[in-house]
């Protein structure tokens, strides 16, 4: 579990996971195109995410595609979120999102 936290500690790696959450199954080239990082940096970060099992891969021909693997994150949530807390946590997260979206709208 410690390599999961280590992998998640980096902002660039979190953005790579965000990118896969938005669109799953991207190649290295696709990911590098949309990131303010060199292709080498993206490759290095993806390797760290893969070894922490936060990214799984599949080959399509010679192309390696990257997928967000939420299983280790689910295990972290299960470890610390109790049986009846789920709904309350969800409600709080929804509330936070709503408040923050309406704040952005007011600013706009």
């Amino acid at each position, binding site marked *: 579990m410690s390599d999961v936290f280590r992998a998640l500690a980096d902002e660039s790696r979190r953005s790579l996971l965000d990118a896969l959450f938005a669109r*799953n*199954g991207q190649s290295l080239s696709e990911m590098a195109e949309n990131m303010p990082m060199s292709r080498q940096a993206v490759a290095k970060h993806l390797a760290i995410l893969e070894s922490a*099992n936060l990214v*799984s*891969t*599949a*080959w*399509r*021909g010679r192309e390696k*595609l990257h*997928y967000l*693997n*939420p*299983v280790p994150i*689910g*295990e972290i949530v*299960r470890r610390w979120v109790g*049986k009846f807390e*789920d709904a309350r946590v969800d409600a709080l997260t929804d509330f936070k999102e709503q408040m923050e979206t309406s704040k952005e709208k007011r600013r706009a």
Partner: protein
Amino acid sequence: MPERAPDFVYTVFIAADQETVWNGLLDRELTKAYWGHYNESDWKQGSRWEHVRSDGSDTVDITGKVIEMDPPNRMVFSWTSPKNAHDPDQESRVTIELIALGPDTRLTVTHSDLIAGSDMEKGVTQGWPAVISNLKTLLETGKTLREDDWPKA
């Protein structure tokens, strides 16, 4: 080489040998414990398989055909809701692969040909991570997670 890229690829590392994990996917009592369902089939290529609730109702939630069976390495089957079984467009495809890593096993579940935004896609993306994580817990500790922790198929 698959015609289309998979929609989702889920991976879990399980501290159990490959035969144990393979058996864990097929054994009726084990799947009941971590999946709430059992999988009914003779597992021959071309045969039907059914994903049946273990709550005694024998409700079939998912059905499909066995496309490939290579124990204890790989199984491929089609996946569809019984109400859409007549419609090939609604059919998606599941590939389960096991790779031995010393005493441990890497389990990969790949789901392809899902219809984006469909209820099936939603169910599958919530379901698989919980199911394989629950299988891991069961095989490693003999315990399963709270049943209400993960969505029903």
